[in-house]
């Protein structure tokens, strides 16, 4: 038989559970926060300490690596390379400014008319810019002088800045054996100052047949002039040796 209490419509009441008050719940959150904060701080402190050690070690390694790299640098090698480079640059600089004086002569030759005679010529190189030519010239008339000035002006090599001054007239006389004047003709002499820019007369290397062909020394022929011949050949031998060095 079931007991009367089992049939009761009144629900059974379990053991009384104490409800947590509002204030005790707030204390629990604060405790939680404080613990989390404390442990986080401790962890962060440990982490920062260890990371600091790691970073310091890394810095030491980087410094050591830098010192090793600096140590492997060779100042001697740098000096060697720098000197070589500078020597090359200086050689290239002179090569770039090497000019042909023979080309200046050829330009002057092609720009000189037939009725003109150059008595004296001086040439001066002004830095690496130009040649200044001063020519003392004789001609037969003023017309020739004017024509010559025009020809100089039209030259591709000679600069347009042509100065012709000290124009003077004289008379040249042809004398006979007794000193008497046979004939006389007027001459005009003047000084031409010409400028030739260096870039107009660059040196262009060409084949050097004369210089590169080996010289042959003929053995001396012993005859009456044996002494002279030997002397001549000895000079040739010297020149042969030197030529291989020089030309």
């Amino acid at each position, binding site marked *: 038989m079931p007991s009367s209490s089992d049939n009761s419509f009144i629900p059974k009441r379990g053991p009384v559970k104490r409800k947590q008050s509002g204030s005790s719940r707030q204390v629990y959150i*604060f405790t939680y926060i404080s613990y989390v904060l404390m442990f986080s701080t401790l962890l*962060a402190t440990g982490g920062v300490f260890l990371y600091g050690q790691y970073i310091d070690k890394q810095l030491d390694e980087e410094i050591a690596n830098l010192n090793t*790299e600096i140590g492997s640098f060779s100042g001697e090698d740098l000096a060697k390379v720098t000197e*070589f480079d*500078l020597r090359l640059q200086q050689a290239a600089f002179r090569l770039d400014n090497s000019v*042909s004086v023979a080309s200046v002569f050829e330009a002057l030759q092609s720009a000189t008319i037939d009725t003109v005679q150059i008595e004296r010529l001086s040439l001066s190189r002004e830095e690496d810019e130009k040649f200044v030519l001063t020519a003392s010239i004789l001609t037969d008339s003023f017309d020739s002088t004017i024509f010559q000035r025009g020809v100089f002006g039209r030259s591709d090599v000679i600069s347009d800045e042509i100065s012709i001054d000290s124009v003077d007239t004289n008379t040249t006389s042809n004398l006979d054996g007794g000193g008497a004047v046979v004939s006389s003709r007027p001459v005009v002499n003047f000084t031409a100052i010409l400028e030739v820019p260096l870039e107009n007369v660059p*040196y262009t290397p060409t084949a050097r047949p004369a210089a590169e062909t080996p010289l042959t020394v003929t053995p001396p022929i012993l005859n009456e002039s044996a002494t002279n011949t030997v002397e001549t050949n000895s000079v040739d031998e010297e020149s042969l040796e030197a030529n291989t060095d020089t030309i």
Partner: protein
Amino acid sequence: MIPKGLFAQIAMVVVSIAIIITYVEPAFGEIGEVQDSIAVYREEREKVSQVNAQLSSLLQTQKSVSLVDQNKLLTYMPDKENIDTIAVPRDLALIALQAGVLYRSAAFAGTTDAPQSTTDQASTPGALTELPKPYNFTFAVEGTYTQLKNLFRLIEQNHYPLEVTELSIQNIEGAFLSVDMQLTTYAHQSALPANEIVF
């Protein structure tokens, strides 16, 4: 009355904050500085490494130049002590002989100071800071016009520069011309005093 547990919790929070302020935060700052230093050292190490690699490459390039070419360069642009003031007149005499002109004289005429690069030129990348030192020689010959042209052609072909800086030609007699000239050759001038490297 404050419960004992709450006091301990407040103390923990205070201690935590104190630790953060007095140790963690400064330590973070120091770590940041060290990291910056590491970055700087690494950057500098890479630069030095690049310089070393470039130097090594240049050294290899220099070594790859044949001995013949190196000798030619040394002949063309010798050191100051290798300018022989007797050998050059001897070479000029031999050139005169080969050109067929009458050799009169050749002599060393002293040195001149190398022209200095201007400030603008020096600041231009690739510009020469030191120019080669000029050595002057006088040279006098006599000959015909054709012989003289041949002489100048031979002078141009010389293994080292012989630049005509002054020239005077005079008609002496017949087709013969008297020529006095000043020739200039050059010696390599070092940019730095010996064994001195400036970083």
